[in-house]
């Protein structure tokens, strides 16, 4: 067997393994970067200037030689590193970012309750986005409703960002087993998406995300140990990837063609309570 033939065989084997591998990641973006926006987000009408960046909700899984295992203790470090990188990257696009920390949330029971309700509602919509149509965002299909509007009002921001991250790292045993063909190859890696919910509509106006290319690879992707060891590097990479298609705060993009049934938005600015109640008194008076 010549050296060249052996090299070719190795390359073909690697390619086959890559093609045959199933992604262990589940999300909207399974490769590279991705984005979806409503027309109003594209044309600046509903482009937020201030964004509350919520703490990321992440799931960490180690793909072992025989089974997979959820990791809990390791999430805190990665989530903090991700928040640092995301704050930096989103701010660089001109947005004013109000980052929420767990300490801040823990000290404010009202904020904690609002956050919990908004996260719950967001996750319900996110499940549909992930499982079915991400393009629905363009058509204003997904509403997080009053829960997110209350949160945004409480925080005094135009929009709230809900980051969701998934990390699937291989163990050494798993990589060996995959390499020897004794285990079904599952492509691991890091993917992250964040939806932006506007305070005025309560709808998911945009979603940005991506897969960290440095975290994927043959035989189950980068090892879990390596991800934890170089958390800052990997989190910076995923943050950079995910905002790559996010427009700058003041730059309008070409609107997309929307379907004819898209409903017209009715938006109100902050209401002057006294004026409204006085006027209504006249309109409803005597009845």
């Amino acid at each position, binding site marked *: 067997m010549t050296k060249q033939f052996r090299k070719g065989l190795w390359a073909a084997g690697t390619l086959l393994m890559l093609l045959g591998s199933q992604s262990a990641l589940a999300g909207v973006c399974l490769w590279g970067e991705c984005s979806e926006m409503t027309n109003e987000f594209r044309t600046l009408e509903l482009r937020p200037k201030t964004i509350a960046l919520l703490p990321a909700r992440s799931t960490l899984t180690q793909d072992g030689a025989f*089974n997979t295992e959820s990791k*809990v203790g390791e999430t805190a470090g990665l989530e903090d590193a991700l928040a640092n990188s995301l704050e930096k990257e989103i701010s660089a696009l001109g947005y004013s970012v109000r980052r929420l920390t767990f300490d801040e949330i823990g000290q404010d029971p009202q904020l904690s309750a609002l956050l919990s309700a908004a*996260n*719950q509602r967001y996750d319900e919509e996110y499940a549909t986005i*992930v499982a079915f149509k991400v393009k629905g965002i363009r058509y204003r299909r997904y509403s997080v409703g009053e829960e997110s509007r209350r949160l945004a009002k409480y925080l005094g921001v135009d929009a709230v960002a809900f980051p969701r991250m998934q990390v699937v790292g291989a163990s050494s045993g798993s990589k060996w087993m995959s390499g020897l063909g004794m285990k079904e190859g599952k492509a691991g890696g890091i993917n992250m998406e964040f939806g932006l919910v506007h305070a005025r509509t309560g709808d998911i106006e945009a979603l940005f995300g991506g897969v960290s290319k440095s975290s994927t690879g043959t035989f189950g992707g980068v090892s879990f140990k390596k991800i934890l060891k170089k958390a800052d590097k990997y989190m910076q990479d995923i943050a950079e990837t995910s905002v790559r298609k996010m427009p700058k705060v003041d730059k309008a993009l070409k609107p997309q063609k929307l379907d004819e049934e898209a409903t017209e938005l009715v938006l*109100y600015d902050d209401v002057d309570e006294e004026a409204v*109640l006085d006027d*209504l008194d006249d*309109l409803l008076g005597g009845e």
Partner: protein
Amino acid sequence: MRIAIFVSIIVLSLGSFQAVWSEQASIYAPLDGGSKAPVVKVAREHEQQFVRRGIRFNDPELQQIVNRVAETILPVVADTFINFRVYLIRDPSPAAFSLADGQIYVHTGLLARLENEAQLAAVLAHEAHHVAAHHHIEADKLRRTKGNIVGGVATLLNRNAREGVSYESDGRYFAQSVYSDDMDFEADAGSIALISRAGYAPVAAVQALQRLRQDPELSLDRGTASFNTLELMAERQGRLQELVDGMPQQYANVAPADARPLQLRRVIEMTIDDYIRLDRPGTALKFADSLIEARPDAFLYEAKGESHFALGPRPVELEQEFASWVIAGKRAEKTREEIHAKYLALEGGPERLAYNLESAVTAFNLAIELDENSARAYRGLGNLHYEQNDFRQAGRNYVKYLKLATDSMDRPFVLERLQHIKIELTKQKEAGQ
């Protein structure tokens, strides 16, 4: 065999009550060999994550109740890695769970269901027994070894063993230990011993299971997705009843009424609100109805009205259908609005919508009859008329709501609607209507 041993322990402990319990001796053997490290480590990591993510529900009044009951029933254990502590989680489902190192979590939905502290004691004692008898560690060992041949054979031999499931709530989840049926039976028996020692009637354990079996949420058929099936609960209740019947009369006949009542109004309101927020109005309605008969309070009629309104064109059996969608992996196919539209388009949809709206109006009016300051009833009527484009009625009810609920969180949103109502009424006035 284990059950038999435990029944003996119960009889022994009751027979020589003073001798066994006053010395605070542990009836639980310490962990004998084997590695406890992984599951205890994970339990501690979960605790840190729960704190970090604000999963624990901080409510001093409720925490005080739970702590008071727990203090009386928690057993003494020789294992140094176990340190019992009880926390609350805001979740409308009637559940409690524990982790290997002694953390016990109680859902607010459970507190809303249980009638008295004796029933709460029984639930806490059941969880405490799982911890003290190292059930988490045993379940974890089984889970870890089932991937290899020895574990596979062990799993086959133990036909009752169920696999671990994820506990999902409020967007958070963790792997919850799931015990074999035998472990649950044993924990039930253990709970009787623990609550008897504390002076609660053992029959409270049977009553707690009976209440949970009849619960609108737990009576849903979730197929294999459920780890606490109705059949299992029925069997547990039957076995518990047998144990209680076999106990000496002086212990079995302690009246459950001596325990302080639970079911605080605030917790019930919270539970029904949470169900509606989670788009489970059918369960909210059934739960409100189950309480109204014994307690016709204005707040329950408010909740009933809101549940009917949230149901819209959907049937009250909606949750059963949702449960089957979850099993089939179809729940995420449509958004809430799309599900509403789907049901409205079905045969009988418009009639169901009319019925639910009419029922909501009746319930809100009953709430106002019982309490003229029933702010939520006015808001409910406002929402209902607004959806029907009856802006005049909506405006009147919203204004009443704002006057009654001066510090409500949703004030800005009600004002937005009033702004819209003002525009519509002005248009109508100009058109001479």
